[in-house]
């Protein structure tokens, strides 16, 4: 089950400077929630899958999730990397390189990430993926479990990020993927199109939302919520519900026993400030739930910062499933 990976000490990236957050992520421990462990995994699956796709990696190949940039690596060997997500104005030595592309790195090159002007998470993928200790059949790290010594140790200055021995992709390979990329019109700017404006979070409603009158539902969906500074990989906290619907919501029947909660669940604690559950959410929760934000919108939400605005819009389960399937098919 959980194998300790073979170490290839001659091929790694060394962290030579680190100010932001950086962790190893894959698509998460999807089958470990019954043990009480959060599913975890990469925050922005779109950017993550994009990077693995550029390199011809497996969809689940582990990458580095860099939050708010400000990290510098030194390569021990030649390798091919891809950078996606928030634009950190990355340099290889003295040369600025483009986001959403694959790049060739030579031994002893310095890869420097600045601070992104917008967005939060940047992905650094390496051909073949990163090698690290698995925990619950995944390489994903969570900050709370790092403290309990589960999985690979936290990344700090001096850490060596171990890579596969053969991670050099030929030029033909790069041209090939670039070609597919063009043909399929993978345009990140279209995926994140409304990130500058208010992000519309489409959600699958639950009885608590449906218990409101249609006028009250409209009020809620017209309201601009501000992302609070307490937001993190576990949950995004939003500003208070519109005054006019608080009384109705307060009087609606609510469950008292804790039950399983999903990715994107919009919880409503008694302070009437909704929390959207993200990748490092708990498995079970007791707060009433308004609905669940569709997963393809959660990959945009995770890139927003405190102070950014969001709005809710109800949608159907079928639409949500179509959107998610379409997203995964792009990278197949």
């Amino acid at each position: 089950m959980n194998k300790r990976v073979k170490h290839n000490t001659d091929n790694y990236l060394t962290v030579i400077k680190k100010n932001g957050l950086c962790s190893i992520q894959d698509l998460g421990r999807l089958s470990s929630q019954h043990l009480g462990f959060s599913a975890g995994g990469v925050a922005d699956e779109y950017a993550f899958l994009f990077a693995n796709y550029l390199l011809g990696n497996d969809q689940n190949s582990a990458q580095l999730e860099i939050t708010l940039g400000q990290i510098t690596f030194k390569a021990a060997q030649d390798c091919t990397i891809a950078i996606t997500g928030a634009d950190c104005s990355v340099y290889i030595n003295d040369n600025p390189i483009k986001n959403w592309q694959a790049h060739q790195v030579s031994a002893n090159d310095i890869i420097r990430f600045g601070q992104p002007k917008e967005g939060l998470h940047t992905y650094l993928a390496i051909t073949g993926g990163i090698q690290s200790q698995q925990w619950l059949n995944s390489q994903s790290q969570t900050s709370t479990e790092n403290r309990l010594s589960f999985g690979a140790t936290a990344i700090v200055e001096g850490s060596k990020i171990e890579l596969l021995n053969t991670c050099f992709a030929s030029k033909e390979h790069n041209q090939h993927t670039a070609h597919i990329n063009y043909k399929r019109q993978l345009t990140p700017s279209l995926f994140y199109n409304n990130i500058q404006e208010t992000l519309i979070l489409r959600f699958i409603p639950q009885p608590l939302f449906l218990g409101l009158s249609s006028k009250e539902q409209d009020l809620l969906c017209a309201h601009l919520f501000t992302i609070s500074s307490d937001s993190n990989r576990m949950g995004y906290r939003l500003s208070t519900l519109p005054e006019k619907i608080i009384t109705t919501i307060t009087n609606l029947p609510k469950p008292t026993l804790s039950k399983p909660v999903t990715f994107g669940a919009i919880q409503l604690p008694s302070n009437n400030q909704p929390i959207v559950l993200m990748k490092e959410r708990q498995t079970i929760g007791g707060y009433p739930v308004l609905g669940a934000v569709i997963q393809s919108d959660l990959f945009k939400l995770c890139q927003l910062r405190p102070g950014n605005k969001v709005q809710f819009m109800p949608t159907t389960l079928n639409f949500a499933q179509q959107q998610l399937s379409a997203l995964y098919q792009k990278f197949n």
Partner: protein
Amino acid sequence: MSKNIKSTKGLPLVTLSYISENAVLLEWPEKVCAVQHQHIMHCQQQIGLALKSTVIDSIASYASLIIYYKFDQITHDSLNTLLLNVVQKSHLSNENLTLSKQTSETEIEIPVYYGEEAGWDIQTVAQQTQLTCAEVIQYHTQTTYRAYALGFTPGFCYLGELVPRLQLARKSSPRLSVPKGAVAIAEQQTAVYPNTSPGGWHIIGQTPLDMYSVKNNEFESTISVGQSVKFVSITQAEFLSLGGELIKEYV
């Protein structure tokens, strides 16, 4: 997106809600009830067998069960039919049954030191419930609890049902740090905090017992869902000899 399954007596037995792209939530009447929970766990097992690799994970709680599944591998209609069949079959075979007898091997005893140094809130609990500390301990140790769910933090197991005399709302403001091994109560539930963590429950004691173990990189929770749990009062000397560490609360 929800659907009710009627029982043979015409009462709604379970509600199915497709709450996320890849999750269906099954909900039973809201109660802490061992027989109903046993039925839920039986359904969980049967659904796993019937759906095999289409199921990603399933999590049972007090009166609910979530099935995470590969939504591109099964249609709504077939999933509905399958879940309906499993729940009805399990219900029929379970309906007139009492709780399965737990063997002594499946019952677990948790030693607890209930002294004030460990039970930070035991005096306030005593005041609020109008009991003496000794009575609080007596009420807490007299019940054989059932493990209803795992969650919150690794190894944290929700146990029920606490006697009504001890039921209190959660603390109005949660502590930022609850010590490892804290034995706590809230509403109808009791539990042990496996590690230092934030927490809003009332701490009435502390156990030296670890709530999980990691062997060969595999996680094992000390208490499994469905298991019977008893708390046993121990002295400070016994607590310390079992490796317990008393921690002072900094206020």
